[in-house]
Structures are given as C-alpha cells and as structure tokens.
C-alpha cells in the first residue's frame, strides 16, 4: 500500500505528518522524537537561497514540484540485483528498495553470529535498547531541516549493530535502489552502532532501477563509533539518473577510534552530501576523502563538518573534483576546533579540474578554531588540465585522449589509494575509466 500525498512546501510537509504519523513505525520513545523533529522542521523550514548552507544548492526549487510522499514500503516484484553487485567483492549484501530493506533480496553469508543486521522497523521493536541509546543522537534535528524532516518521517532503512570486540570479516555492501513510477519522496534512515574495539567495512552504493520520473531521497545515516573501534565507510553514488538526493551522514567517534570515509559521485542529477563527524573522545582519527566526476548538468554538493571536541585528534580531508559540461560542484568544508581540543591536527584539501568553460566549482573552507595549540591547514585549487604535462606525454607518442585520461587518473590517484577494498577500487577504476572516456 502506498500513502500518497501531493507535497510542495514546509507547511504541507508539516500538516501531512499529522496525517501519516500513526502509520509510522516505532514505540512512544521514537514517536516523541518524531514529534520534536517535525516541530524543528517546521521552525527551520525548507532552506531558502539566503541560507548560507544551501547557497549554491537550490533546494526550494527541488521541492517546488509536486511529488508523492512515500512512507510505506513499495514492493518491487522480483528484480535481479546482479547488475548492482560489485565484481569480485565477497560481501554481505543488503538491499534497500526506496529505503526499505528487502529481506528477499538481501544475502548475509556467514555473518558473525553476534552481529545484528535488520530493518530499522524491526529494530524499533526488537532492539529498542539500542534505539533508545543511539537513535537521533548523532544527527541533530535542530541543526538541519533535512535531518529534522527525515527524523520525523523516517520509515525504514538498515540497522547494524557490531558488538564490542567483534571484527566483521567481510565487507557489508548496502545497495540502495530507487524505483518509482511517479515522482516520489523517500526518507531512508540507517543506524550503525559499532562497539568497543569492533571493526567493520561498509560499502554503500546508490542506484536507480527503471526511474522514468524524478525521485527525491533525503536520507540520514547515523554511525555511533565506540572506543577503539575502526570503521571504513565507502559510498558510491553511481547510476542515479533522475534520482535527487540530500544525504546526511552523521558520525560520532569515541576515544581511540578510527573512521575512514570515501564519498564518490559519478552520476546522479542532483546530489547534496552532508558529512558530519563529531570527535567526542581523545586520540581519534578521521579520514574523509571524496571524489566527484561530473558532466552535463550534474550538480554535486559536498558539505563536510568535522567537530574537534577533544584533544589529540587528527582529521584529514581530501576532496577532488573533475567537472565537465555545464556541471556544478561545491565543496564546503568546516572544521571546528573547540576550546578543549588542544593538540588537534586538522588538514583539508580540495582540488578541482574544470574540463569545460561552462563547468563551475565553488570551494570554500571554513575553519573555526578556539584552542591555541593546534595544527590546522587547508588548501584549495581549481584549474584546467595541465597543458605542459599533456604536451610532454603527447611528445612521447600518447594520443591526446589517452594522455588526458592518464593525467586525470593521476589526479584522482591519491583518493583512490585510500580505498582499501581491492575489488571496490578495481570496480571504481573501471567506472571512472568509462566516465572519463565519454
């Protein structure tokens, strides 16, 4: 069954919530959070252009067209997920269709027994102790309208709990498939809890299946990373066609933990990625890497926020963009170093190559430092492909196209090397090669 409503504005989304809230999953604890979230959304509203955070991403326009609200699972008759699998990647597979976990399509092979993987709906019932401890703790409903909106409407997604001292041997591959026959609006919500000294590798891919219309997905993923835990989280936004996404990932790190994340965007009409990391313990390390290769009228907006709240932590960000056609790229990287966070090392770099005169990039670092004994640096550069290097390679016999490809591959190489799952890196190499060959 589909609950369908035409929506177009903040008010409409708020009033629709009243209508659907009883059908939304979760106990009274969850319901009370939803209520607070919708109030926050009502106060914040869909960000206007004047809003600094959404200056270059016109979300008002995105929401101006009427779409259908989807908060109830849509069944997709047996589709084959083969084409969404990553070749040679031996992984546990979780499939989300429009943000709803499909048990039928998911496949967990010899997953460590203590590890819990379930739909969020089920977790609301069965794992309420984790939900009450972690749900809506990493992603602050008062900080962003879309976190608030998603928290209010969150209908399903995946819940993963890796208990203390557990190492998940194989990567967990979450395949997000968006499929809709009419313009639709989705609210996927994920929660990953990684216990003390636990380790896990997560790969998330974003795909579309037969999407003749526009679909807007506002997803939120919360990751609670406990002491000493090590988490690698790779996101690949590949074949997104008409999919328009506002994704938020909010991670909270406890002491001595490591969090490595890669966000790669190759296709997708309109993508906004918010990545928020709070360093809540000492001696944490976070590596945020990103890569976007855009063409046509693609719009890719990466906003990062690293909040250093405790001493002796290190954060490292490298984002690279290659923009062609009339595409637009945005990188906005915020680093906060709070008063307590002495001996912080924070580094940020954003480098971009424009392949066409009509492509644009807006790169903006924002450092706010309240501690005095810190090392912070940031750098940003935008340019064209290096003509001298191109000539050098051509003078050795390389054709202009292969010389260009070689240089562009070299440009993204350092980000690629941070991907530590070989099969994923190989797969990406192939996709990038294809994309650059267009």
């Amino acid at each position, binding site marked *: 069954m589909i609950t369908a409503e035409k929506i177009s504005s903040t008010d409409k989304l708020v009033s629709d919530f009243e209508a659907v809230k009883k059908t939304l999953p979760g106990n009274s604890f969850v319901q009370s959070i939803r209520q607070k979230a919708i109030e926050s959304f009502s106060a914040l509203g869909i960000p206007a252009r004047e809003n600094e955070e959404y200056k270059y991403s016109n979300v008002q326009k995105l929401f101006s067209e009427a779409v259908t609200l989807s908060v109830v699972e849509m069944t997709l008759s047996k589709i084959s997920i083969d084409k969404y699998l990553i070749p040679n990647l031996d992984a546990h597979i979780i499939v989300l269709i429009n943000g709803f976990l499909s048990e039928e399509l998911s496949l967990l092979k010899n997953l460590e027994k203590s590890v819990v993987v379930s739909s969020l709906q089920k977790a609301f019932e069965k794992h309420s102790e984790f939900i009450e401890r972690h749900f809506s703790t990493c992603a602050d409903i008062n900080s962003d309208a879309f976190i608030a909106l998603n928290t209010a409407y969150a209908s399903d997604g995946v819940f993963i709990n890796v208990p203390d001292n557990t190492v998940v041997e194989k990567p967990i591959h979450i395949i997000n498939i968006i499929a809709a026959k009419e313009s639709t609006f989705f609210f996927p919500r994920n929660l990953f809890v990684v216990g003390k000294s636990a380790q896990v590798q997560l790969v998330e891919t974003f795909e579309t299946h037969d999407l003749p219309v526009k679909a807007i997905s506002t997803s939120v993923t919360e990751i609670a990373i406990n002491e000493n835990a090590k988490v690698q989280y790779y996101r690949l936004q590949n074949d997104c066609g008409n999919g328009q996404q506002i994704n938020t990932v909010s991670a909270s790190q406890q002491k001595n933990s490591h969090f490595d994340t890669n966000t790669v965007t190759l296709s997708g009409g309109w993508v906004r990625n918010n990545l928020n990391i709070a360093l809540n313990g000492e001696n944490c390390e976070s590596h945020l890497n990103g890569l976007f290769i855009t063409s046509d009228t693609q719009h890719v907006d990466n906003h990062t926020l690293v909040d250093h709240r405790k001493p002796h932590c290190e954060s490292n960000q490298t984002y690279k963009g290659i923009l062609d056609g009339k595409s637009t790229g945005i990188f906005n990287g915020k680093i906060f170093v709070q008063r307590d966070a002495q001996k912080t090392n924070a580094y940020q770099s954003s480098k971009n190559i424009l392949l066409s005169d009509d492509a644009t990039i807006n790169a903006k670092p924002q450092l706010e430092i309240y501690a005095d004994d810190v090392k912070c640096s940031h750098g940003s550069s935008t340019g064209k492909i290096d003509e001298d290097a191109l*000539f050098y390679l051509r003078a050795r016999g390389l054709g202009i196209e292969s010389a260009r490809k070689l240089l562009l591959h070299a440009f993204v190489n350092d980000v690629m090397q941070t991907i530590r799952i070989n099969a994923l890196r190989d797969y990406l190499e192939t996709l990038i090669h294809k994309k650059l060959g267009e």
Partner: protein
Amino acid sequence: MLTIKNLRAGIEGKEIIKGFNLEVKAGEVHAIMGPNGSGKSTLSNVLAGREDYIVSGGEVSFNGKNLLDMSPEVRAREGLFLAFQYPIEIPGVSNINFLKTAINEIRAYKGIGPMEAKDFLKLIKEKQALVELQGSLAGRSVNEGFSGGEKKRNEIFQMAVLEPTLAILDETDSGLDIDALRIVANGVNKLRSENRSFIVITHYQRLLDYIVPDFVHVLYDGVIVKSGGKELALELEEKGYDWIKKEVVEA
C-alpha cells in the same frame, strides 16, 4: 631525414625563429650552439609540435612527410624525440606505465599489436642498464622529486626505450655531474647508428668530446649564422660568441 627550409616561428606575436635552414641526413649528429635566448629551445619545441608556438613560414619535411602537419603524438610515432631542457614533473603517472602506453600506441600506429609484458620488462631493464638509471626511479612518478640530473637521465632513458630515428637533445648536459655526463653520452653513443640522427643542443664543447658531432652550427637571433665541423665548438669555447655577433652585424 630532416629538411628545414626557411622556417619562421614565434610565440605571443613575437618572432623567434627567423628563417632557419638545416638538413640532417640519416646517421648524422648535428650540434647546435648559441647564446641564451637565441631560439634553440623554441626550435626544439616547434619541431616537437608544441601548439603554443605559431609557425609563420617555411617547410619542414621529416622522412619525406610534412612534419608541420602532424600532431605532437604523430611526430613521436613517426620517430621524432625531444629530450626537454626542463623536463616537467607529472605526479601520479608512473614512468613505466606511461612508457608502456607510449610504446603500445606507437606500435598501434605502425599496425603492430601490443608488446608482451615480459618483453616490455626486458626492454626496460636493458635500457635502464644502458643509462645506469636506478630501478626505483623508473618505477616512480614521471620526474617527481627527481634531482635535476636524474630528470635529464630519465629523458635519455625514455629515448633509449622509444628508439626514435631523430632525437633532439636540448641541453641534456646542463646540470649533469661529470660521471652522469659520461654515462648519458655513452648511452647516446650506443644508440648511434646509420639510420638514427641526433640534434644535440649544448652550451659546452665538453659534451662534444664525448658525442662527437659531424657538424656544429651557431644559432643567433633565430638563424644559423655559422656552421662548421667539430673544431668550431672548440673555437667558440675559446673565443665566446662576440666575434660571431660582430660578423653578423658587419655582414
């Protein structure tokens, strides 16, 4: 092999090569000397096909074909090689990887299939030994973090791998220490053959002790003002360029 007739070329509206003539036959070594700024590197770049330079007149034929009509890569595939005066660094592109692509694209141009991996490795090893280039350098990104001398040696290494029919060495000797100079010169000498020609651009007659040229030319203000045998280089070493400049002015 190479015939340049009345070549005129410049950059940014400024003419630098002003009616240049040269004939290089197969197997010959020509040295070009001349004061700073006389146009030696400009000539090299024009011959290699750098698009920033505009050719405003003259003809260049290379093995019977019109060189000026060819893209840089086609010139290379036809057998032209330029060892750059200032080799650039290309981070992220490995020497070996790009040479492999270069060799295979040159082969494809000639209608030959790609080189077998093991043959390629053998070739690399052999040529590395020829110019005594450390194995680790060959595996690194093109010139990245190389010393000045290492960069020059890497140029000669690439030349040895690509086996061109005409190699232009633009001040390959500058910045080389005495041992490296000897090694590079030996490398060049080993590649000398009756169907391979060299244009050696240098400021120092010392290099010409090692690579003995058939002809020495003096380039001044975009034209060859004097040509001779290897003795001319000795004379220049002794007397400098002033007497030649004077001759030009008087003529």
